[in-house]
């Protein structure tokens, strides 16, 4: 009896004692990336980072207009109010999310070469090697896009430095996989950084499939899912981004070459016709997109529509939308008579007293829509500006800008010299308004920022320290090797 009791007591306590756990949510990086589907999932992660709200999902598309002269605040919700008056603060904060995309890309670039090529599927169009090349090219493209975004926010373009301040951003080409990888680095120079981006894109151009291949049925292995154009990078997207990067670097001949190459790869290089310009903005896929980020309603929580969508920032098309900013009167005035692009700004006497931009109508519902990151129109603008700024090729610049103008309801221009350059800059402002370019176009040319009257602040001279954004202060405190931008 006694023994039975004691053993009962002991059994109660010793039953099932193990320190094993069953994490059902994660793998080691080596396990996760030992197959081509896993590597592609890492590539897709990098794309997903790009449409976070503090990347192209919202801020990248808005802050360049708010900091410059295209915004007029309509409803004071706190959003973009400080940007519009260029207060001193941390705006356009890409320091975390851009680097997350970069780290995703670096994982791909580390583990992709370790894959067994025999286990990579192929198709009639693409060999196994070309499937791998495409994934590598996409990783390089995303990394270059993220770095170019960081550079235009935090650095002066090479040759445009103020007081010789030539720091770029922190460069990382290998993934952060163990703690020691997350070392505290210094900022490389802007020249080194642009060189890094250029190298990535030149390599990506060679690796990526063409738009024609991308649209060929069955080109991509069905086991790897969709590679729908223009939602994943192709050769034209890499050429187009390289053209933009060369323009920022002031390498105009290269910019022209790459923009031309990008257009040449497209099945239809012609910009959207004037008659369909306004409706192009409510198409799910923008007809001019060379590279576009796809967003689905499941990517957002229930309140992201009113809280974070581009449609909520710029319109009151749905209940709860904040309608923070309208087009400034100065932006409207920059349009020539007959410009079909005026059609995206809606005013009516009864409810909308300010011109409401309808580039972002949230056509997928609840504010959801895809984000065109690089459009054909930008290529013509790059050709035109690059040719005009090189000098001696005003005719070529006119050809490029007039291709765009005639598709926007305007007459061809025959301006030359400084007049032509001014016209091209104005054309950029009008064409790319509410797409986040304006501030950076002025900055890369060393131009002052003339503020809209409604902002109530003075012109921001190019040499004002606020031309570069503040690196988040917590990072400066954390990393003694990280130099803050001047003035902050």
């Amino acid at each position, binding site marked *: 009896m006694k023994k039975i009791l004691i053993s009962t007591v002991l059994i109660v306590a010793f039953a099932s004692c193990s320190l094993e756990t069953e994490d059902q949510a994660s*793998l080691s990086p080596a396990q996760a990336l030992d197959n081509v589907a896993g590597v592609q*999932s*890492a590539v897709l992660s990098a794309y*997903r980072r790009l449409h976070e709200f503090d990347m192209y999902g919202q801020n990248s598309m808005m802050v360049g207009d708010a900091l410059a002269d295209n915004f007029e605040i309509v409803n004071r919700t706190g959003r973009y109010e400080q940007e519009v*008056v260029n207060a001193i603060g941390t705006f356009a904060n890409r320091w975390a999310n851009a*680097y997350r995309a970069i780290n995703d890309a670096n994982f791909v670039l580390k583990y992709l070469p370790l894959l067994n090529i025999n286990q990579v599927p192929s198709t009639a169009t693409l060999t196994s090697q070309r499937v791998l090349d495409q994934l590598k090219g996409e990783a390089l493209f995303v990394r270059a896009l993220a770095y170019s975004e960081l550079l235009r926010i935090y650095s002066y373009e090479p040759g445009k430095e103020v007081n010789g301040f030539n720091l770029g951003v922190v460069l990382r080409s290998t993934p952060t996989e163990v*703690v020691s990888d997350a070392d505290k680095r210094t900022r490389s120079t802007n020249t080194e950084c642009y060189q890094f981006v250029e190298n990535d894109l030149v390599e990506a151009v060679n690796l990526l499939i063409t738009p024609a291949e991308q649209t060929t049925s069955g080109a991509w292995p069905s086991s790897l*899912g969709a590679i729908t154009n223009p939602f994943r990078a192709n050769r034209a997207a890499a050429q187009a981004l390289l053209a933009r990067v060369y323009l920022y670097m002031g390498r105009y001949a290269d910019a022209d070459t790459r923009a031309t190459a990008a257009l040449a790869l497209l099945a239809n290089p012609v910009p959207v016709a004037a008659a369909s310009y306004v409706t192009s903005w409510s198409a799910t896929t923008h007809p001019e997109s060379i590279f576009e980020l796809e967003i689905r309603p499941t990517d957002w929580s*229930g309140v992201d529509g009113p809280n974070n969508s581009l449609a909520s920032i710029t319109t009151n098309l749905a209940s709860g939308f904040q309608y923070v900013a309208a087009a400034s009167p100065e932006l409207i005035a920059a349009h020539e008579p007959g410009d079909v692009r005026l059609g995206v700004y809606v005013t009516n006497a009864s409810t909308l007293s300010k011109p409401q931009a309808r580039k972002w109508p949230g056509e997928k519902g609840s504010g959801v829509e895809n984000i065109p990151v690089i459009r054909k129109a930008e290529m013509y603008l790059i050709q035109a500006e690059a040719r005009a700024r090189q000098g001696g090729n005003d005719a070529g610049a006119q050809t490029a800008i007039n291709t765009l103008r005639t598709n926007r309801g305007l007459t061809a221009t025959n301006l030359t010299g400084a007049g032509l350059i001014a016209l091209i800059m104005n054309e950029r402002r009008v064409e790319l308004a509410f797409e986040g370019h304006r501030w950076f176009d002025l900055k890369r040319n060393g131009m002052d920022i003339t503020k809209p009257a409604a902002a109530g602040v003075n012109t921001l001279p190019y040499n004002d320290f606020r031309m570069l954004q503040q690196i988040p202060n917590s990072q400066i405190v954390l990393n003694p090797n990280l130099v803050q931008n001047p003035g*902050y």
Partner: protein
Amino acid sequence: MKRILQVIIVALLILPFSPAWAQDRTVTGKVTSQEDGSGLPGVNVTLKGTTTGTVTNVDGVYSLSVPASGGTLVLSFIGLKTQEVQIGNRAVIDVQMASDVTQLSEVVVTGYGVQEKRTLTGSISSVKGDVFQNLPVQSVDRGIQGRLAGVQISSTSGAPGGALNVRVRGIGSINASNDPLWIVDGVQLSRFGQTTQGSSNPLAAINPNDIESVEVLKDAASAAIYGAQAANGVVIVTTKKGKKGKTNLDVSIQRGAVQPFNLYEVMDGKQFATIKAESYVNAGLPLTGPTGAHTVFGDPNDDNLTNFSWRDELFRTGQLATYDISMSGGDDKTSFLLSLSYQMQEGQIIMNDWQRGTARLNLTHKPISKLTIGTNISLSYQRTFGSITNGNFVNGPFQAAFTAQPTSTAYNDDGTFRNPYPSSGSGHLFGYNIVQGVNEEVRLGRVPQTVSSFNIGYEIIPGLTINGFAGIDASFGTDNNQRPGTIPVFAGGQMVVVSRRTIAYNANTTVNYTKRFGDIHQISGIAGFEYRKEERGGVTASQFTYPNPALRLLSSGATARPAGEFFFDNARQGVFAQVKYTLKDRYIVDGTIRRDGSSRFGPNNRYGTFFAGSVAYRISEESFMDGITWLDDLKIRAAYGRVGNSEIADYDWYTAYGSPAAGSVGIPAGAQYLGGSILRLTRLGNDIIGWEEEDQFNVGIDFSLFGGRLFGSAEFYNNVTNNQLFNVDLPTDSGLGSVRGNVGEVLNRGFDFELGGIVLDRGGFQYRVSANFSTLYNELLSLPNNQQRLVNNGVQLIVGEPVAFPFLLQFAGVNPANGKTMIVDRNGNLAYQGTQDDVDVRGTYIPTYFGGLSNNFSYKGINLEVFFQFQGGNSAFNGDLYNLHAAGSSANNQLVSQLNRWQNPGDITNVPRAYQGGIIDGFDQQHGTFGSTQFLSDASYVRLKQVTLSYNIPNALVSKIGLNKVNVFVQGLNLWTATKFAGIDPEVVSNNNGTAISSFGVYPLGKQFMAGVTIGL
């Protein structure tokens, strides 16, 4: 029959004393309890210096023959203070007896056993359940607030059923949990609440009225037997057991009300329109026209200007009700306690309420004399209709009740909700009508929970028992959050359902031994093994687009949404032993060791050893102390030991690559791009992380003086936590935010004082005082790599400072010349704008002292308790003021005090110039990213926490209607507060490790008033 039995029992008890027949006169009397006036049965009544004596009968009545000359009666009973009464020539002598407040002979519950308090070598504070019996509190932590030295308790939410922070001797850990280990009848509770629809408290599953005692193990000597779980202290809750004797039935009924207090005074319509117009004019913005101030906010000179109080629409006086029934009793073999309760409390905000039903059966049975088996079964069901709090949420009433514009109403003329709010169409608060939102959003949490256990004990030989225990804390919560389509911003309607389960079980086997060798040596010990496993999981699902708000099932929604699931588990096992040796009842030595393993660490660091050693010396037992008659008891003691903390996330030690959740908030489905699944690094692991270790040193003195009139203890502790489990921030350019590491040391040092006594005891009137006071000094001793500063989860840490402090610019008021706010820069000069270099430590968020003072007055069955609770030395930052102290610069309604804005050169005020946008010449008047001490204030407070007035209706009356006991009472909670805090409630300042970092929209406490009656059958 019952009466006859009682008479026989009394007769049997009296028989041994029958030789006293020869005495020549008789005194009679009744012995009653001083606390409640009830008759005390079984009290020994003896004639001093003789063997003559008797005991009181069931009604407390005695009768004793005494010599004609009288003499002295000695009345004694275990747990009561022995009394001597001169007989004189009286024939009737009624005596009131008081509890033996010295309580040094009392037994306290310790780890895996019980010990006599007088031989304790460690630091244990305890509270009896009577202290919070029938208080309108939902959980025991609220009941013991302010009652224990060294235990700082503050609410994290005033919501009914809401959570509290309990901190035993400071904040030892920066990133791991600082919650003590809670053990209810041996069951180690899970730390995790089961609903997010209100503030959720895992302890609310236990009815406080079922609790017999609460013991807090505060130092290594008492807690090291819990090893790796002991660093934050251990709280042992013991529920009531049945006692041998007749079956008691107690019924308690209470009703009451709860009221908000000290709400923000915000502007009315005219005031608001006035300051808005002024802010527009100052910023060069138009008054009229489509975007003009008059159009958006109303014209202050308009006689028909709307004036609507959102605050009054949302706050209310809520109802409280509690019903308790308990039955207990037993015989030689079996004892039981059965209790049922229902409690309902409405919040001070409309729609918000909390209800709970509990059932408990505590059963003990001895089939043979050496064997004891028992079970404690506790079931509870909580239903919370919550409120959005703790954030700057436009759909949270604690934000929007104050910020919604008084120039717009919540209703249309026909009584329907106005949409969109506000009437100007400006989209303020995202167009969300807060009154409609609070009325129509469903935020329902339902949690059934059981905390139950089984135990068996067998006495192998006298003094040696073997015990087995198995217990479980299991809860299954379901949250339903409906955002109905009637609210335009939730176009079509949205429903989110979260289903959670937590199952934590622990089992142990212990061998307990105690043996006394003559009068000299006493030895006792415990050895045991324990295993604990905790598993948490759940499913989240949502659906959009509903045909009607009354339809709330997921299956009624037309738009499919992703579903999500989560799962975590951890396991721990340990072996432990404790030995105590007592020599001559005065020299005591005690040693404890425990080895623990946890699944939360990598294989190389999985196990840790924890220990404690302590000594005590009962000086009052020495013969040379015999002459000091006023000294009843005096003991000094010292203890040193090492305990651990492993309360970090479950899988931190390894690097994880996985699928992240989709959506920036809420729905945890796997993220996708272009329909393909996503893989990314979700956590950077560190496989060399190990236990946080806390080295604890404690010295104390316990005393009792003047026959128990004055008693107490004083203690000093010095605790150093090593190997802090830090989230070491990584440069975000690495693509990651942080990694876990064992770095840094934190010191907690302080004094704990407990003092009790009888101030006055005359003519049946007694005034007792019980007080405790604690000091706390908290300092970060070191950081990784000898750094002096570290940013941890965005919070600044500095060596030599407390672990939580305001890190702000120094506010310097408003420049009388131009109405701009200023700060003092690092060189002591005034400036409009600060930089990182001007930011500095501004005090501490951690209270440096705290305590409680209980005053108890009793007279003939009337009892009045007046209890104060206080804490101080800390500051709190009130984030609400970002919205409310904005000098009219934003679209939010604001404090009436903002009318003292700067208007003309020379104006002296702390409210800047009204200026739309709040940015004057590029300078943020609230100091932007860094913040300033503008919204920081001293959060010290003294609070009249509780007043209870109760009356025991005299037994003579009660027994006439066939009852045993009737007690009626009225009480109030949180009746009065003295503080300098610039916010609603200095106690509820949202938490960061129990410190007082305020944030937006916290749910303050309310004033509670209750009246009730307890009836004993």
